[in-house]
């Protein structure tokens, strides 16, 4: 039973106009899938569909267990009177019926999750007062508390300081070793080589498979088009960073 499966999946925002087509892949528990796509290539659309926010226009998908979202841009209200701990605790909201208070076990789980991300000292600080990297780690803590089987991380390293990046990478590896499935949207082609699978998108699926087979020059060219810069010596591919605040759609 795959953790995440998509079959002929198509999705979009205006009826009859899919912005993403022909998505077909399966990811197993314990795998981390790098999702490579240029801006406007459909990765956010894919994530929104897997989260249930968008209804597929064609095809089907299945997720075995809960899905957690670690979004790229902080669309959260930074002015809300919530601490990092409060945010992590939100991961337990789904399993707490409305008539019950949050369980003590869940509170402990939230503290643990923050600790894994190195945020134990910041637990009582207001979420909006944290740095970008710290907020990202708090959101990951929320996903951990959710005990999600599948995590969708949209460019978790964008705009994040070095220390946070190391921390986040370590946590992601831990989560994968726990049997969870991670889909990590990234622009870092080199980084994606360390993971189990790569999914290349550019308004449709270009390729899916192990990094060695997928990260070939032709595939990358089809994925990134003009954005790709290839250095011949050593054999590396880079993409131009686009810090586009608007994101897709």
């Amino acid at each position, binding site marked *: 039973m795959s953790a995440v499966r998509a079959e002929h999946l198509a999705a979009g925002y205006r009826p009859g106009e899919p912005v993403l087509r022909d998505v077909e892949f399966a990811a197993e528990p314990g795998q981390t899938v790098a999702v490579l796509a240029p801006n406007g290539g459909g990765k956010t659309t894919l994530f929104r569909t897997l989260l*249930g926010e968008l209804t597929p226009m064609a095809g089907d998908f299945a997720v075995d267990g809960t899905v957690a979202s670690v979004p790229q841009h902080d669309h959260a209200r930074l002015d809300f009177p919530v601490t990092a701990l409060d945010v992590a605790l*939100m991961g337990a909201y789904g399993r707490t019926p409305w008539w019950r208070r949050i369980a003590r076990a869940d509170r402990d789980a939230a503290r643990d999750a923050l600790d894994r991300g190195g945020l134990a000292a910041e637990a009582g600080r207001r979420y909006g007062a944290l740095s970008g990297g710290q907020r990202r780690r708090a959101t990951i803590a929320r996903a951990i508390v959710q005990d999600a089987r599948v995590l969708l991380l949209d460019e978790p390293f964008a705009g994040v300081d070095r220390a946070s990046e190391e921390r986040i990478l370590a946590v992601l590896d831990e989560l994968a070793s726990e049997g969870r499935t991670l889909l990590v949207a990234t622009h870092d082609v080199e980084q994606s080589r360390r993971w189990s699978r790569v999914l290349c998108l550019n308004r449709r699926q270009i390729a899916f498979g192990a990094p060695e087979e997928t990260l070939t020059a032709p595939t990358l060219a089809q994925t990134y088009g003009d954005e790709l810069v290839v250095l011949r010596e050593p054999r590396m591919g880079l993409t131009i960073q686009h810090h586009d605040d608007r994101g897709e759609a």
Partner: protein
Amino acid sequence: MAWLTDPLGAEFMQRALLEVALLAVPAGLLGTWVVLRRLAFFTHAAGSATFPGLVVAGPWGIPAQVAAFGAGLLYAGGLSALVRRARIAPDAATGLLLVAALAGGTILASDVYEAGAGVDRLLFGTLLGLDDADLAVSGAVAALALAASAALGRAWLAAGFDPAAARPLGVRAGATDSALLLAVAVAVVAVLPAVGALLVGTLLVVPAATARLLGRSVREVQLVAVLLALAEGVGGLLLAYHLDLPPGPAVAVLAGGAFAVAAATAVRR
């Protein structure tokens, strides 16, 4: 001391004080969510929209609360239709409906039912002229506010903080947010006898907005908001009693003053 105890002797003042105490609960609990979820103008407009309902209640023989709630539902439905179907921007649609409600109400009041003189009371409240029904409704809404806030507060927090993340977290934002709008509408109806159609913000927005500047967690904001609403309500009543002023506006000015002081002096939280 007589300044404080004299008013307490009059029965109408005792009722007014009870009303203020009861209304402080939804004012603080639901008002906090009104402020956090950016529903201040919706609430203010919903209050004004109940005006025609209040006007026809007497002549049509319906309880004022029912008529007001009906007018509120019409407003909400109309707003939804104008925004979704006619594609009018929400603020323009709100303006159109507000004006229609106020214009319609005043024509009904002065030309159809000739209740002209009573219009001031409908618009600014009759805190010193409450009946048992008003107090009963306030008590019920206080209980409702407590229950709703306890049961749905988490959902309202999650949906407000990060709407896109609410669904994956298992929070059914569509249903719980609709419940919040409904709770606010009911609260609006409850405060009408006290402050009138034009001043619902006095209880449901201003104390919570002031508290928001002072509190650091949702619980804190709610507690401070309840206390502020209570203090401002009592203060306004005493001023009204001694200076012969309309009580609703008196509370509004006190509340506004408290907000101004807090805004000018509160440390950034």
